[in-house]
């Protein structure tokens, strides 16, 4: 039996329903369903979870300290490694904050390409996120490969654009690193035309599946009040029925001009969190169709930006975007030097884990994996 650490005594006054002791189990950090190196100290009564404490830090490399010791531009490739599924949105959040800090403008063509890249990122993140969730439920491999087949096509597009499949390092303060190669937008149009067929296929596989329903309906419910208080963001918040999408609220980039709906859940359980992602993929397709209609020609970088000799004026800025996992924010303080005085990342999947214990209490230990899968975490971002 593995003991929890000293600061966390076993639950007192909890009487076992069965005859026997409350067992303390350490799940992870090497567990196929923890999405990386993540550990949970779980106290179980029979199979029922009575206490759960997440343990972080196995992938901690003090990203923020590194960010304070290098120039603003040097942090850009490092943001790729936060949520390594969504490097484009990480780039955008960081670039957006630095643009706020320094008061830079973004050319129109760059805004179009940014929206396209962010929505493509959302497609591949949600597809693989749902795939991993089904994988956690025990459908090992095959459904995930359906999602990964589509994700490969999206990553090919990123590779054609940025030279790297996952570590794109593509955005710059005041624009983008380079323009799209000839024919790239046509490839995107072709993919966007084909993608709904995959969503239909994927949804048909999932929606009526009896095992999946039994494993996810009513599991890990988060009430809207708790979700707001605990700072939950992204699809997980909207699954609880709170209408809050930063694309609508802040209206950054091109989003105020675009028509799209915000899917909301009714119950806030694992099934809702899964279906929200499917519906968001459909809305992303709608956004992409609008943006791809007419991408203007023009420059892709603000000529004032000077990324290689960049010293923003004194001040601070907090910028945030709706990343596929939730609100990704950056907080920067400048003291007129080439390095930020303070560089902070607000990681959505780390803060979404605040309610992990609340979701798991009273469920079986097998449900813990489903609940964790439905939060959609990436440890590169949780531990930083």
């Amino acid at each position, binding site marked *: 039996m593995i003991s929890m*650490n000293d*600061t966390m005594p076993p639950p007192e006054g909890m009487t076992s329903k069965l005859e026997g002791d409350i067992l303390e189990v350490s799940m992870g950090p090497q567990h196929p369903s923890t999405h990386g190196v993540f550990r949970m100290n779980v106290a179980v009564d029979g199979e029922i979870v009575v206490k759960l404490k997440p343990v*972080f*830090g196995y992938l*901690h490399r*003090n990203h*923020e*300290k590194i960010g304070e010791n290098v120039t603003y531009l040097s942090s850009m490739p490092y943001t790729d490694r936060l949520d390594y599924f969504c490097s484009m949105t990480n780039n955008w959040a960081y670039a957006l904050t630095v643009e*706020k*800090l*320094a*008061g830079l403008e973004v050319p129109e063509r760059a805004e179009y390409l940014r929206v396209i890249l962010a929505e493509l990122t959302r497609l591949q993140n949600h597809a693989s996120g749902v795939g991993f969730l089904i994988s956690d439920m025990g459908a090992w491999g095959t459904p995930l490969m359906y999602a990964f087949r589509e994700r490969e096509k999206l990553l090919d597009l990123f590779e054609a654009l940025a030279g790297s499949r996952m570590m794109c390092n593509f955005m710059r303060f005041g624009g983008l690193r380079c323009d799209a190669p000839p024919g790239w937008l046509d490839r995107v149009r072709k993919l966007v035309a084909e993608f709904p067929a995959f969503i239909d296929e994927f949804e048909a596989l999932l929606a009526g599946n009896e095992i999946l329903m039994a494993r996810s309906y009513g599991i890990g419910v988060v009430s809207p009040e*708790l979700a*707001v*208080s*605990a*700072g939950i*963001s992204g699809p997980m918040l909207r699954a609880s029925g*709170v209408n*809050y999408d930063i694309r609508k*609220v802040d209206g950054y980039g091109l989003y105020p001009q675009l028509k799209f709906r915000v899917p909301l859940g009714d119950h806030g359980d694992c099934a809702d969190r899964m279906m929200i992602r499917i519906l968001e993929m459909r809305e992303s397709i709608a956004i992409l169709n609008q943006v791809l209609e007419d991408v203007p020609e023009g420059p892709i970088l603000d000529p004032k930006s000077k990324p290689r000799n960049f010293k*923003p*004026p*004194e*001040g*601070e*800025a*907090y910028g*945030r975007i709706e990343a596929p996992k939730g*609100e990704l*924010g950056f*907080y920067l*303080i*400048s003291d007129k030097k080439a390095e930020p*005085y*303070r560089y*902070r990342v*607000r990681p959505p999947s*780390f*803060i979404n*884990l*605040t*309610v992990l214990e609340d979701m798991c209490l009273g469920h079986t230990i097998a449900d813990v994996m489903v609940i964790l899968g439905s939060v959609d975490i990436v440890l590169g971002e949780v*531990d*930083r």
Partner: protein
Amino acid sequence: MAAESLEQIKERVEAAVPGASLTLVPNPGPAAQDSLVLDHAHAVEVATFLRDDPELRFDYCSNVTGVDWLDRVEKRKVRVMRVVEGEEREISEMQEERSAGYLEAVYHLYSMEKKHGPIVVRLRTEGRPGLPELPTLPSLTPVWRAAEFQEREIYDLFGINFDGHPDQRRILMWDEFEDHPMRKDYSPPDDYEYEPTPHDAVLERAKENLSRRPDKDGCESIV
């Protein structure tokens, strides 16, 4: 931003919470996100007011983080009148302005109900005591659950105690770790793993560490 300006919010808070004194800190940059510094004694009350007031409703505490401000010496040129060689003349002189360092916790608040924000709320410690003594701030976790992990992170990386936090432990570093790495004066412990014969910069750093904490390094035999 909310319908009210930050000055109006400040006035209303001071009227609603007797005894509270807020300080407005302007942000000189283009982002123009000004902030309010709360006093420790009324911080939880003021935070509860910001959350529950029907006009403001800052129910969503998005980002909580720490900042370490070291002691600063600012040098400025000033013109002063001085008696030089028998006659009074105006000369320029360097003047030093010292400001004591402090640690602070910064909260970015939004409203999900009213869809406005952000306002920036700050809590500042009195001075910057040397380790292992930690400064204390009131915890706002009872008001916004979202601060739970983020205040733990500040405790871990910056070394600020949060009074009233339900479960204050290290979160990213391991429990046995003794320093607070996000502090500006943190120096990493020596690691000779890849340095069979330490020299130059590594040796300098080792000496500095040795003077800082002679019992911890285990590098006495090398230096």
